[in-house]
């Protein structure tokens, strides 16, 4: 009734009708399909309400601004990094700012096992030996060392100091190594010390750690007795698990060694002055470091902890960090801007591992050969993954591995991997005949859930279907579950990768030895095992290198794996920063040799 009345008086200026009309409009809810005539601009209530709303908005803005001051105070409470330079290059204080991929999980060198902790550790600690700017072994705390059969002797320099001024002695090493091997420490990387006499038995709890073959004869002489003579022990001691720990300080931390900046004693080029967990870390030059003259920077700030590559690129672009890895999108811009670009191969190889257990079809050599014959790593890298820095893998041994006089792969060349569909189909037919099958049932490809693994598994599905008619079922699992399935052997093929633990080809070569726990496809070949034993025990470089060559050949001929790619990065550095080194071993990004070149900044 009212509605009918309103319809006539829609444009009525009278206030009461106006109100009625207003109500009518509200009654039919916004969601109703009925479309109503727009309100007249002169609507008093709306106008008054809008004015009121504008007033509230103004008040809200002021209130928010006031709240900001309070929040600013709160934020400063939760980050004690106040006053830290947020410029990529602080010329005045001679400090560089960089980032960490994540919060270092474990800064107690006795228990640490990851790359980020290792990178920080290489800046604040020093072992008997270290890696120099050319990634070669150089004297660290030890000024010289000597191996005589199964006895290795290290002579320590007398000017090596802890950051509290005390000398670094052979006892600090003896204590550290014995603590690593003590069962109660629960050190994941204790196995690296197993070449030392009685080390494994002590780690088992069978004998006391006192019987381990490491002894500080005096403050400056460390004598190590090995279980059997090995050729690569000196290359292992640069790793962080072998770093010294000051016993008195360690005991005094009550199990919190490495938990905070003040819960560590440093003997490296830098000391850690602040560590805001999950946020930032500040390193300053260590005045007690024996080779302090070599260190040109006064400080290094890790101002951000994130693994988001876009964020890091944006931070670089904004002049807040001095180095960043690039994605393909950013690469174009970087080239356009003429930023200094470099490539870094991380030293890892990624490959597809077959399951060689007796109940698996992939145990059949001809099937594996057929799959390798349609496999094309360069297609995978260049046309599928398409990330800057990635290179196609040819074998298990990555590019950095050295032979006798040059790159290992040049001394022991393998025929290149070429797709040969016809030959592949022949091998597939042979495999089917041997297996007594008409048609191959689908194979399970176990994959992780990273973007690269995702695209890679889908690519394989297509390749093997198109060329061989083999169906792959992708089983995508998150990290831990994938490991569980790998260990249980619940797969036909699995995408895997391996990074080196120490600077010797053996770190790759023993991977498919029948006893190696990381050989998750359970490949077992007495011929390969024999070569691994030669490489482990021989002291003759030529004999060892030949053994590596044989292993290299067997892995290819027996198609133990299909090589996929070697991971690397294209990265950009601030033009004013020189001397950043990226190592396969030790610090992934090493600032100990870096310096600020002020002149280079002028034309920027």
């Amino acid at each position, binding site marked *: 009734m009212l509605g009918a009345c309103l319809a006539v008086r829609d444009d009525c200026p009278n206030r009461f009708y106006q109100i009625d009309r207003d109500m009518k409009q509200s009654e039919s*809810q*916004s969601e109703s399909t009925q479309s109503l005539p727009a309100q007249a601009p002169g609507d008093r209530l*709306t106008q008054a309400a809008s004015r009121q709303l504008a007033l509230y*908005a103004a008040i809200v803005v002021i209130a928010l601004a006031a709240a900001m001051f309070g929040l600013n105070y709160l934020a400063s409470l939760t980050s004690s990094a106040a006053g830290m330079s947020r410029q990529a290059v602080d010329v005045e204080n001679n400090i560089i700012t960089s980032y960490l991929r994540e919060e270092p*999980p*474990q800064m107690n060198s006795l228990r640490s096992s990851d790359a980020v902790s290792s990178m920080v550790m290489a800046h604040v600690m020093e072992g008997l030996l270290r890696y120099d700017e050319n990634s070669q072994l150089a004297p660290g705390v030890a000024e010289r060392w000597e191996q005589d059969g199964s006895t290795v002797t290290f002579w320590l320099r007398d000017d090596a100091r802890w950051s509290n001024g005390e000398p670094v002695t052979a006892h600090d090493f003896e204590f550290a190594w014995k603590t690593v091997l003590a*069962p109660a420490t629960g050190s994941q990387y204790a196995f690296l010390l197993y070449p030392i006499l009685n080390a494994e038995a002590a780690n088992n709890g069978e004998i006391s750690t006192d019987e381990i073959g490491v002894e500080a004869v005096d403050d400056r002489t460390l004598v190590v007795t090995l279980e059997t003579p090995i050729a690569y022990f000196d290359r292992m001691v640069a790793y962080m698990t072998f770093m010294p720990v000051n016993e008195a300080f360690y005991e005094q931390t009550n199990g919190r060694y490495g938990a905070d900046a003040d819960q560590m004693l440093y003997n490296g080029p830098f000391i850690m002055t602040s560590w805001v*967990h999950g946020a930032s870390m500040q390193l300053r030059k260590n005045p007690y470091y024996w080779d302090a003259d070599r260190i040109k920077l006064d400080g290094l700030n890790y101002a951000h902890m994130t693994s988001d590559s876009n964020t890091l690129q*944006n931070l670089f672009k*904004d002049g807040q960090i001095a180095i960043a890895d690039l994605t393909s999108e950013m690469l174009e811009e970087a080239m356009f801007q003429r930023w200094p670009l470099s490539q870094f191969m991380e030293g890892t190889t990624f490959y597809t591992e077959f399951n060689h257990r007796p109940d698996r079809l992939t145990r059949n050599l001809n099937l594996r050969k057929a799959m390798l014959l349609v496999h094309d790593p360069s297609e995978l890298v260049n046309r599928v993954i398409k990330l800057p820095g990635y290179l196609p893998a040819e074998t298990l041994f990555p590019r950095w591995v050295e032979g006798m006089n040059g790159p290992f792969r040049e001394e022991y060349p393998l025929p290149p991997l070429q797709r040969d569909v016809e030959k592949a189909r022949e091998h597939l037919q042979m495999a089917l005949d041997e297996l007594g099958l008409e048609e191959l049932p689908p194979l399970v490809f176990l994959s992780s859930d990273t973007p690269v693994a995702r695209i890679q598994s889908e690519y394989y599905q297509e390749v093997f279907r198109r060329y061989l008619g083999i169906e792959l079922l992708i089983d995508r699992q998150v990290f831990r579950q994938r490991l569980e399935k790998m260990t249980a052997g619940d797969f036909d093929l699995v995408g895997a990768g391996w990074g080196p633990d120490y600077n010797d080809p053996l770190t790759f070569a023993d991977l498919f030895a029948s006893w190696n726990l990381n050989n998750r496809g359970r490949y077992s070949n007495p011929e390969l095992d024999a070569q691994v034993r030669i490489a482990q025990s021989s002291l003759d470089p030529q004999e060892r290198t030949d053994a590596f060559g044989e292993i290299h050949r067997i892995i290819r001929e027996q198609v133990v794996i299909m090589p996929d790619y070697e991971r690397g990065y294209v990265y950009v550095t601030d033009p004013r920063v020189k001397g950043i080194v990226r190592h396969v071993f030790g610090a992934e990004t090493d600032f100990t040799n870096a310096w600020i070149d002020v002149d280079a900044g002028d034309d920027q």
Partner: protein
Amino acid sequence: MWMYTLKRLLQGVITVWFIATATFFGMHSVPGDPLSGERATNATIRANLEARYGLDRPVSEQYFIFMGNMLRGDFGISYTQQNREVNDIIREHFPVSATLGLLAVLFAAAGGILFGALTALYRNRLPDYIIMFLVILGISVPSFVFAALGQLSLVNVNNVLGFSILPVAGWGTVGHMLLPALVLGLGTMAYMTRLMRSSMLEVMSADYIRTAKAKGLSPTRIFARHQLRNAVMPVITVLGPAIAAITTGGFVVELVFAIPGLGRYFVQAVQQLDYTVIMGTTVFYGAFLVFMVIMVDLVYSWIDPRVRLQ
């Protein structure tokens, strides 16, 4: 009132206990464990590690040990951040998430109420159409897109200007949190705008508004006292869960803006099967959420006299 509060608190405790128990057994039934790594560990090292973390005992025993420790307020040591207690992780990182969340909620509530009221006043007119279009956008576009876009725009603005008006990422000043808070609160702001709009429209057609108009109250007073105050009720109802959701759900934003908040730990702990951190953060967040809901119910009776608690 006191009885009611007590009853709700008791229910809350039971809810939290239930969350803790379900998470504990759910977590242990997932294949894999926090000690496995890319490098296979030999039996000796594995046994040493299991003994160190108490994983060598049966799960039921571990449950009672965990419950006992939880009652004492001790969640143990993280598996991935091996030197840090879960309590320290929560204590150091929750304030960051909370500060960011608080600002995000302020943005969301202020924006939601203002824009909601505005769209209702101008229903089916241009401001309404524009804002509602943005609202749909805000609800449907996930926050990582806004985060990435926001950061990229900021970099470009900074580049063009030649100096930083706001930091691109990081934490420490209010400048660091403006953009992340806005991005984080955007979805909630859009949701609240819609809620406020429909609630406002409902109120505008209520009998008491007609009465108010009939007795000749000034439009300003009608709007402020009768319409806005009544329309804001549903928004306040969702405020509690929204605070909890924003404070706990900042994972993506925290990652993109490199903010050391608790959200990162919450998500990464699940990926890494970091048992102690999963339990600590889940119980903490669960308790926080339950507490927020109870708070809203209590506050509600204070704002709306029609609601009486018993």
